[in-house]
């Protein structure tokens, strides 16, 4: 049985065998995970095979301390989000908020906004971030977030509202 570190090492060296072993051991979970963020099982399969193809072309940057699960979760999440974004662009659909303040800003101003957002997020508690990652990042379902934080549905909505207010205040 190949270890997680051996798999990550093989991936970083661009070995096709490592990509194959990764898919054999984790492919079903990768597809199920992608399915959370894209609309359809076939699309989730496409997202995962596209990701493997990119790794074959350009080996992913893997740090020695990376855990395989963390590496796979972040890679599949970002591949899924990218797929959704690309799909919208290919369908000629407008940005999610056409003509919004951020869309109109120059790249430097947008980057500044991202920096301010990053800094504001750092000032929130871990629970507040989990609530916002559920609401805005769709990383978890509402039920999963409630379970992780050990709170009821009513408390979820109340605390999410407070977290949004807190973040908005930090961004003033």
């Amino acid at each position, binding site marked *: 049985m190949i270890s997680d570190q051996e798999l990550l090492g093989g991936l970083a060296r*661009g070995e*096709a*065998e490592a*990509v*194959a072993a990764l*898919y*054999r051991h984790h*492919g*079903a*979970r990768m*597809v*199920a*995970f992608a399915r*959370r963020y894209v609309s359809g*099982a*076939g699309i989730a*399969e*496409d997202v995962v*095979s596209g990701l*493997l*193809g*990119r790794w*074959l*072309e*350009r080996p992913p940057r893997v740090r020695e301390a990376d*855990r395989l*699960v*963390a590496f*796979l*979760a*972040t890679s599949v*999440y970002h591949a899924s989000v990218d797929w959704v974004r690309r799909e919208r662009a290919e369908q000629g659909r407008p*940005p*999610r*908020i056409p003509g*919004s*303040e*951020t*869309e109109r800003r120059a790249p430097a101003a*947008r980057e500044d*906004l*991202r920096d301010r*957002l*990053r800094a504001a*997020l750092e000032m929130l508690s871990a629970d507040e*971030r*989990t609530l916002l*990652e559920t609401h*805005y*990042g769709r*990383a*978890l379902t509402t039920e*999963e977030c409630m*379970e*992780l934080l050990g709170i009821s549905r009513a408390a979820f909505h109340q605390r999410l509202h407070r977290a*949004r*207010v807190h973040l*908005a205040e930090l*961004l*003033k």
Partner: protein
Amino acid sequence: MNLTELDKLLESVELHVRTETLVSAWELTDELERKRGVVLVVTMLARPGMEERLELATREFIAATLRLPGALGSSLHRPESDPRTLLLMERFESEESFARHMASDYFARLQLEQRTLLAAPVQVVFLERG
């Protein structure tokens, strides 16, 4: 900033999701019931000077493959580290569709063309099979 402005901001500037949240989501994800198909990667090493012809022939092969019922995907990848190598990733919904693919005219045509285009026999690695 009010909450409407915040919502607009976070629709246009994606919220960074922490790794630990994604790991929690991963651990809460149940593997789906899915039919196992055939997934493989074919490695082809072109003879020097034959890279473009091999790519063209393989792209025609891919176009034909994708017209075959049961072919779920076929994509070509060129590793940045080795421009003479082409990697073909293929997905089929079943052994039967994979067998039809291997018995097709376009498959035989590519094999014939490969005799003059390849520097070494193709290598096939199965990622999933049945």
